[in-house]
Structures are given as structure tokens and as C-alpha cells.
């Protein structure tokens, strides 16, 4: 179960980390879902055209980037309401992918393309003798191993670079940036583009793992990624933990379907319930914690 949880976690984490940048820059990116979907579609198409997994991931990333730029242009440059722009981008992805798919391949349904390579696993078959460690570290699909550097990189960029400082300042108070002659919109744009790349990449992992694109393959994971940002208290490591928690919660509900006599449909709400509980416990602990007596 740990093994699958880590596989499930990877896309959530990448999308969540990207979303974290947007969030810290003060832009609530609810379009993660649509960007993931676009990433998934583009990944399959490019992987099929090139026969390369890496190219597929790049394609997914670019698709996310494209939508993110649209988000920036309308939401930031044209000052539209970012929530509505987010909804619009989700709709745009949901509407235009079948449209393109139908035009390009004659189907709006499952898109099984020739030449899509299988996602390679790394460290397959390695063993330490401790099953837990093996499950965590070995044999995962290639994309999973991107997540650790991604967390470190996100932490480094956000906390230790001038860019990160400016980006965080943008989210807290854009006026301060303006008053020192910087344009907050640049940082919002950068943050959005990063979130687009994260979500696009996450989408590509989802699709390449399956080797096909199918409608709605993101299935709400963009929203969950958004939740991990808050649950992770807007820190990269926090997002990692939150994504893992959610993946484990999903793992529990999946496993429970086979064991418990509770109807499967009901168990589908388990991950959400567990996440709410985690949020409450966390906030309540912060409340009584060292802050105030």
C-alpha cells in the first residue's frame, strides 16, 4: 500500500508545489485541475509522436504552461476575477481537449495512441531486506523520483533566492513591491507559469502511467493538490506531507473496499473526511500550541 501511495502522491505533489508558488504570490490557482488535464492530453500526444517519455513529460509541461499564460493574461493583465478565470480555464481544458482529440484522432473517448512508451521504473528489483524501505524507495515509476528534487528546489527558490523573497512579498502585499519599483505582476506571472508547469507535469505522470489519455483522467486531483497547499501550511515540505497523507488516505479507502463490508461508494468519501480531520487537528494544535497561553 505504501508503494501505491507514493505513486499516487507524485502527481499530487508536483501540482501542489506548483500551486504553492501561485498561492504564495497571492493568486489562488483553482485551474490546477484543467492544467493537469491538458498536461495529460499533451503528454500522450507528444509521447506518441516522439516515442519518448521525456518528450511526453515536456509536452505536458508546455500544455500547463500555455494555460497558465492564459490565466496570467486574463486574470492578472486584464484584471479579471481570478476565481472565474480559474473556472474558465478548467472549462476550457474540459471542452477543448475532446474537441482537439476528435479533430486529430476521431475520438473523444479513450485515446490509445501507438508508440507511447511505458513509464520506466527505476531501481526495480533492488532490495534492502526491509519491505517498508523497499516500498518507499525502489521500483517506482520514473516520475516519482522527480518529486524529491522538486521539493528541495521549491524550498530553495522560495526561501533562499531574491526571486523567492519577491514572490512571497507579492502575495503578502503587492504594494510594497510596487513601492520599490518592482512590478508585482512579473512575479505573479512567474508563479503562475511555475504552477502551470507543475500541474502539466503532474498530468503527464497520470497519463503516462496509464499509457492512454481518457476524459477527465485528473478526476479532481487538481483540487486535492490545492488542498495540500493549505494542509501543508504553504511550505514545500508541508505540501509533501499533505500529499502523502492524502495518498495514504486514498490507499486506506481502496484497501478497505476489499476488506470491510462497508459499501465501496461510501468509502470514497474517506479521503476527504480524513483530510478535514487532519486539518482540524493541526489547526487546533497550533491554537493550543506554544503561541499563546
Amino acid at each position, binding site marked *: 500500500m505504501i508503494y501505491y501511495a507514493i505513486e499516487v502522491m507524485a502527481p499530487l505533489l508536483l501540482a501542489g508545489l506548483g500551486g504553492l508558488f501561485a498561492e504564495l504570490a497571492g493568486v489562488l490557482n483553482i485551474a490546477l485541475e484543467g492544467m493537469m488535464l491538458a498536461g495529460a492530453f499533451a503528454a500522450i500526444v507528444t509521447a506518441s509522436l516522439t516515442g519518448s517519455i521525456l518528450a511526453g513529460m515536456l509536452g505536458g509541461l508546455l500544455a500547463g504552461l500555455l494555460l497558465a499564460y492564459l490565466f496570467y493574461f486574463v486574470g492578472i493583465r486584464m484584471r479579471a476575477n481570478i476565481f472565474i478565470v480559474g473556472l474558465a480555464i478548467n472549462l476550457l481544458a474540459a471542452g477543448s481537449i475532446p474537441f482537439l482529440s476528435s479533430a486529430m484522432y476521431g475520438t473523444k473517448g479513450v485515446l490509445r495512441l501507438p508508440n507511447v512508451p511505458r513509464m520506466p521504473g527505476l531501481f526495480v528489483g533492488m532490495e534492502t531486506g526491509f519491505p517498508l524501505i523497499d516500498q518507499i524507495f525502489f521500483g517506482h515509476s520514473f516520475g516519482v523520483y522527480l518529486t524529491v528534487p522538486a521539493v528541495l528546489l521549491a524550498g*530553495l527558490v522560495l526561501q*533562499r*533566492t*531574491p526571486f*523567492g*523573497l*519577491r514572490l*512571497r*512579498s507579492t502575495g*503578502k*502585499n503587492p*504594494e*510594497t*513591491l510596487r*513601492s*520599490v*519599483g*518592482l512590478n508585482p505582476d512579473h512575479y505573479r506571472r512567474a508563479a503562475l507559469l511555475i504552477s502551470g508547469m507543475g500541474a502539466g507535469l503532474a498530468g503527464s505522470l497520470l497519463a503516462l502511467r496509464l499509457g492512454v489519455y481518457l476524459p477527465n483522467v485528473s478526476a479532481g486531483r487538481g483540487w486535492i493538490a490545492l488542498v495540500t497547499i493549505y494542509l501543508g501550511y504553504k511550505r514545500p515540505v508541508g505540501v509533501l506531507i499533505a500529499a502523502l497523507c492524502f495518498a495514504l488516505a486514498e490507499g486506506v479507502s481502496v484497501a478497505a473496499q476489499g476488506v470491510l463490508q462497508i459499501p465501496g461508494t461510501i468509502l470514497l468519501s474517506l479521503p476527504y473526511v480524513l483530510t478535514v480531520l487532519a486539518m482540524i487537528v493541526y489547526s487546533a494544535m497550533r491554537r493550543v500550541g*506554544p*503561541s*499563546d*497561553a
Partner: protein
Amino acid sequence: MLERTIPADEIPPGMELRHITKRYPENDVLAVRDVSLKLRSGEIHALIGENGAGKSTLMKIAAGLLPSYDGEVCFKGAQVCRLVQQHPQFIPQHQVWENLFLGIEPRTRWGLLDQDAAVQSFSALAGRYALPVAPRMRAERLSAAQAQLAAILGALLHDPDILILDEPTAPCSDHETALVFGMMRSLRDNGRAVVLITHKLREVMEVSDRITVMRHGRVVKSLLTADTNPGELSALMIGEDCQRSESDRRFGFVRREFGTQSGSHESVPEPVARSGAPTPPTQPDSPTQPEPVFELRNINLVRRGRVLLERLELRLYPGEILGITGIRENGLEYIEDILSGSAEPNSGEVLIQGQRPSRYTPRVFRKLGLAYIPTDRLIRGASLSSSVEDNMILLERKRFGRAGLLNRRASASFSSALQQRFGITAVLGKPMHTLSGGNMQKVILSRELSQNSPVVVFSEPSWGLDFRSSERVHEEIQRLSADGVGIVLISSDIDEILSLADRIMVMYKGSFTRTLEGNDRVRDTIGELMLGLEVEQTSAAHEDSRQSTFTKEPRQ
């Protein structure tokens, strides 16, 4: 025509403003009207004028912070112009250096943030100008005065040729004011141009070389400080059309202010206009006295392991003005929170008119009869995006309810009455953020004073007010006290405290050091108490133990 009044001297101009006109389209206010002004290097230039005269607007234009205006801004020799805004705003969760180095971050070889370099160069600068600010402190923990100093240092980091300070000393005690002045002089002596906006004529006379007076968006006159006097200045600010009698009284006030500055050790005369006021209780504890309207008993406040307030005792009687002063970071803002019900003490109790509040919220305190003018105007004191009227009726909202419905006609006439009474320049239907700093404060005052509460807590009531307004506030305070209202006046302005308060309590490191009454109320004594000098003499042993709990500034 104004230019001719300025002697054609040898000082090279740093910057010249030519025929500047600014209209705010939002409320259609012509804030600056055809103003021309030279800011010379090696000179401290004071810009004065009543609230809403257009000082801040003009200087924002000079610093390039307002995009649209008519006229020309020419740099002559100078390159960098920095403005320290009237209400400096920081990102509260970020550290001081992170706020100030934004945009000019030092980098390591790898392009990463060089925190150590930033902290070092900040500390060096702070040392050079003797402005004590800890670079790694989180900005939310800065007191208003510290924030002001930090903002000034932030401007200095850019090594400006022209430094504009918009009411920098408003939140500062004498001590901090002296530090700021020292910094300004040292800049001037290095050939920089410094502009000081202030309402305190004493400061103008003390530090400036040249003075420009603004009124209704126009420059009334520019003159050399040496050639003028406070009387002339205030006449210029108010305008010739002003009635003689009124300006007479004002001169009296101003002169007294100056008296205190030079006349060091003498005790201050009884405040003016106390006719009809009950004599303040000389022996508060004697059984013949009335019950206190407000009482603190052994209040302790601890947050995040830091002792902020310790063993506070306070008794306020009807008709009394109780002054609380100190350097702000020695606990003035925390006592404000305790007095207003904004923070719950860890131990001890508050009694309002003899009643214990059920909860420590402003709501309960107000129900028990408290009115409160906060230091923080922009967030706590005002809803900037609401209309001025909505800001005014906050406390009286129930009065305008009829069967739950809000009677807009009544509330409008109520607000325009307040506007008249307090001389507020504002359009009632427009958002609060269109007001000048002083007018915002007047709105807050008018709201609280319309309440007829038995207890009023004023915190820094005259910050940012021109002296006509601040005198009106002072009159208001005295009138209230004459009506038997108990007043707590928290102020870091010693002159204000001295001229108004019957008793003065001085805070130092979270405790009241001494209560000064009658003839004890001497400027220098207060100054020493604020700095903790007398405390350390009188109760050195006690102080030791306290210092151990009152940790300095934890890093981070």
C-alpha cells in the same frame, strides 16, 4: 512670484518641481494646485500645512509614486529620491531586512539571497545613523516608532540624494525624535537634501533650514527658518482670513509648547480651559473619593513566552485625565490592547465602572461603557473601502435601526453633523481611503466622541493632526473631563501628556515605574523615567529580576 521671496543663494538645487497640479479623479479633489518648489542639496526643508493641504500628495509626486499629474519634476544633480511614507507598511510576517532589501537583495556567488551581507550592511547603516532597529525581527513585532525608524533605514539603504520624510516623528518619543534629527543633520552635512513633513512647529524650528507652507494645495510661502517664527508660520498655515481671536489662542498654545522645550526643569502650568472641571483627586485611595470608573488589578500579559506587561495597577476616576507615556516598545501598545479589550491578560482583572467584563473583547468593553481611539488607524480604526459615513456610524449603528432597518436619512444627518463639528474635509459617501491622514483621524475621533461614554481611552490622539485640529482634540478631551468622563490618554508625546494629564504614569519595560502628580509632572523626570534611568536607581534589585523575564529581542 513665490520664487522671488527666496534669496537667490548659492546652494545648488537637488530637484525642482515645476507647476505641479494633481487631481484625484476618484473624489474629484484638487490636492495640489500649480505648485513650484526647489529642494536644495545640503538643506533640511520643512513642509508644513494643515491636514489635507496636499503635502503628502506633493511629495509622492516628487518621489515618483503617483503616476498621473500635471507639471514637471526635474532632477538637478540628484539621482535618487526616496520617500518614507506617512504610514509605512511592512509585510508583517517577513523580517525587517527582508522587507527593506526587497528589490536590492544582496546575492551570493550562486545567486542566492545573502542574508548575512544584508544584515551586516543594515546593521552598519543603523550604527552609522544611530537608529536602533534589529534587522532580523519580524516586522509585525515592530512598534510604530521602530517601524518608522526601520522605514527610514530602508530609504537610506538606497543612498538617496533626496530623502523625504512624511511625518516621521509622529509615533516617536522625544528620544527617538532626537535620533531622527541627528540622522537628518548628518545627511544634510553630507550634501543631501532632506524634506521633513511635520505638524510640530517646535521640530520645524529646531531642525529645518528652510520652510515651505502649504494651504489648500498651494504653496503659501517659502522662507528661511532663521527669518521666521512659529507665530508667523501658524498664521501662514491657517491663512490671513482667520479670525484674530482664534489665532491668538493658538499662539498661546504654541508658545507654551515652546516654553516647555526650552524651560527645562520648571513644572508645567495647569492646562488651560479647565474651568468647571472637578479638581482631580489628589489622593485617589482616600475613602471619600468616588468609585473609580476604570480599574486594572495586577494585570500580566505574556505572549509566546515573552512577558509584555507585568503587574499593572491602574485606577481612573470620573473627570480625571490619566496620562500614560513611555517609549512605545516598552509596552504602550500592549496596554492599549488591555485597556480596550483587544487582548486577554494572562492574569489580573479589569473593572469598568466596577463591573468585570464577561469576556475580553472590545464588544463587551464597549457595552460596559468604554470608548476607544486606537493607534492603528488603517486597519483597526477604519474600514478603508467603506464610505466615510459607514465609518462614522459604526458605534451608533443601533441608533439608526428602526425595526432592524437602517435609517439612512438619520445616519446621514448624524454624520454630516459630526463632519461639521470636527471640521472634517471629506465627501461622506466616498470611501475612507480617499481621506488625508489627518482627516482619517478626525473621523475616528468624531465617532468615538459622539458616544458619551463614561470612559474614553485615547491612544496617540493627535498623531498626524495639524495643530489646529490637535488643539481641537485637546479641547474635546478637556471638555469631556469637565463633564466627568474618565479619560486614559496614552501618548508618547510628552508635551501632550504634560498639557493635559492630571496624573502621569510612565511605562518602562512593561511596568509602570512611577505615577507623577501635581508638581512632579516635570518634563525631564518623565524623560528619565521613560528611559528607565530613575528606575534603575531606585529599585535596582527589582529591576534585575524583571529584566530576566523581559527578554530583549530574541533573534528571529
